[in-house]
Structures are given as structure tokens and as C-alpha cells.
């Protein structure tokens, strides 16, 4: 798969955090990016587009990140979900992994962390 064929979904209630994530992803050569400002929107966009990778915040209105991970994992048990969150206690990280998240990044993040993840998760397919 070429970088331009990869689709990524971002779920975060901060428009600035979504922009910073998008900038990092675009710098990697990926331009098909969907964004959701709450957990419910993220679930609906996932269902419709089945993106290759999901970046999700835990702290979101309407439906939080933990609920969104659970529902996305029901839609696709192989979903690739990366949590990018301001909440990062040991128990919160553990819960995210138990629900099915593949990686956990505590905010504030560096764009390098995002591109490292893209390189690892999409290795072989990009």
C-alpha cells in the first residue's frame, strides 16, 4: 500500500490537538485523514471508512475514548488504535491496553513520536 492510499482517523475534542496530529501525519506523506471531535463521531467514521490507523484521545465529550475503543474493537477486532491522551496514570494505560489499544502516548507529544508510530505500525504496508 502506498502512503497516499492509507487512511487515518483522529479523534480528539481539541481542534488544535487534531491539527498538530494532522501536521505530523501529513509530513509522513499521508493525506487521507478523517477527524472526529468526540467518541461517537469517531465510532461512526470508523464504521463508514474502516481506516488503517486510529489516533484517539481518552477524554472526549458525548462518548469518551474508552467507550470508543470498545465499540471500534467490536466493529473490527483487528483495529489499530493508538491512544494519545492527557490522562496517563498506570491504571488508565492498563485499561486502554485491555480494551484493545496498541500503543499509548501521553500528551504533550512530539511529532517525532507520531511519525515513529506511523513507521512501525504501517511498516510493510507503506
Amino acid at each position: 500500500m502506498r502512503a497516499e492510499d492509507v487512511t487515518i482517523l483522529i479523534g480528539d475534542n481539541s481542534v488544535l490537538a487534531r491539527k498538530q496530529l494532522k501536521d505530523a501525519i501529513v509530513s509522513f506523506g499521508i493525506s487521507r485523514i478523517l477527524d472526529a471531535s468526540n467518541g461517537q463521531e469517531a465510532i461512526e467514521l470508523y464504521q463508514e471508512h474502516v481506516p488503517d490507523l486510529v489516533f484517539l484521545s481518552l477524554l472526549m465529550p458525548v462518548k469518551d475514548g474508552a467507550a470508543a475503543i470498545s465499540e471500534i474493537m467490536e466493529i473490527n477486532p483487528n483495529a489499530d488504535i493508538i491512544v494519545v491522551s492527557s490522562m496517563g496514570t498506570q491504571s488508565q494505560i492498563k485499561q486502554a491496553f485491555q480494551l484493545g489499544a496498541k500503543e499509548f502516548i501521553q500528551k504533550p507529544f512530539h511529532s517525532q513520536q507520531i511519525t515513529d508510530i506511523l513507521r512501525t505500525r504501517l511498516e510493510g504496508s507503506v
Partner: protein
Amino acid sequence: MYAQFFGNYLLSKHVVTPEQLIQAIEEQHIRHIKLGLLAIHAGLMTVEQVDKVLIRQAHENRRFGELAIEEKFLTEEQLAGLLKQQIPVYLLIGERLVENGFLSETQLEELITSYQEENHFTHLANADEQQENLQALTRSLFMITTLHIPEYLFKYLTLLFNNLVRFIGDDFLPLNPILSSEHVANHCSGQIIDGEFSLTAYLEMEEDAAVAFASRFAGTEFKEFNEYVDAAIGDFLNWQNGLFNVNISNEESVELFLNPVVNLQNTMLSSSSDMILLPIAYPFGTITFVFKL
């Protein structure tokens, strides 16, 4: 790191007014720093030694450094070090207060010396000692209030001052905290932390200050107020609160919960009991943290 608290020390000694201090913060880019002041700050010369050199300088048309070396108050290496060092923000602000005629040069020299002595600062403090000093300074900010401040709030504030340095810049001065049951907020974000204890924190500022604050936070120059500027206020608060939760969880095994950040505009923040308002002056404007305990 302690530089930020020198302004509050001046307020506590009633030698300057908040208005004079804010004016000095805004003008700190105008640099006319005196070498004698730098030498006192670095612990290389005493106030008396500087005065002696200044008196000689008034009679002989020679440089301060040259005379200080001749008097054996400074070595050539020490002078070279002073000339190339980065000037601490509080010295710049102190000098502005002198230039504006609110303090005399001698008064400023004495205040810097007493500030360092009263707070037991040493130039050799390690990272842990620096954090202890910072926590002590945070406590001293609240000595003027009668309200009982819970221990966790001091931890919160110590982290906050570190995060302001880290994400916004170290050129700030905390002003005196205010107790009030109401506060009109311009551009504001709020977040509730709950669990074993509950704390609602707001960060509030005017539009121009918000644009500058967001530009520093995001590392992008915003020209006007927009949705990203609005989000930056909430993101800073969210990072601060998230890191606070992690620290409390690691240090005290207490799990707290964060609620999503709420953005508010032109709102009256109010509470049945007193809220704690902590204004922090930056050269671009004052930002205010409001806490409901």
C-alpha cells in the same frame, strides 16, 4: 526559576504597586542592565563593594569592570563570565523599576540580597532542592490569604509554574492571589478534576493575551483570535491537569478523574464559597488561573 517570584517579593514588601510591576514586565526588553547588579546577583560582590566601585567611577572616568578588578573584587575571568551570561528576567524588571523611578539602585541591590537570604537560595541547589525552593516560594505567595490552602494545591501550583516555564516561557511574574466568589472571564477554559478530592481549574485571559499565549504554546504565530487560539487555552489546562493526575497517582497512589475541558467565553465564574484567583503577568498580558476547591 526563582526569578519569577522576585516581583511578588517586591509586592509583599510594598515597595512597588502591581501597576508599576506590570509596566516593568512589559518593558523588560529595554535593557540597560548594570554590571554591579549582575555581580551581586552572581554572589561575586557585596552591595558595599559595588557602592565603593560606583563612588570611584563617579570621580574617575573608567569602566566598572576595570575598577572592580583593580579593587580585587572580581577576577578577569569572573568579569568575562558576567559579561557573557544571560541576564535573569528579574534583574531586567528590577532595572526597569529603577529607570522608571520607583526604586533606587541601592534599594534594588538590597532587595535582591535580602530576597536571596530570606529564601536561603544557593547557586549550587540540585534539582530536588530547586523543586523544594519552588514549593516554598509557592507557599509564600499565599501567606497573604486567610484561606486554608490544601496541600495538593501547592503540588498543583508547583507543577503549574514548571509547566509555564516549559510550554509558555519563563518571563512571567505571579501576582498576589485574590479570594473572590465571582470573576468575569473573557476567554476561558475550565476542567473538573474529581475523585478523592475535587478541584475545578479555570484558565482565563483577554483576547490579545490569548493570541500571544496560543502562539507560544503551539509554536505557531497566530495573528488573530480563532478556534485554534481558543483550543490552546484548554489544551494547556488539560496537559497541566493530566500531568498533575499522573504525579498524584505515582506519588500518593491516589487515582483522580478528569472531565473534558469546557471552553467558555464572556462568562461570570461564581461559587457559593470563595474561589482562589491567581493572576500571572506575562509581557503579552495577564493570564488568570481560578480554582474552586
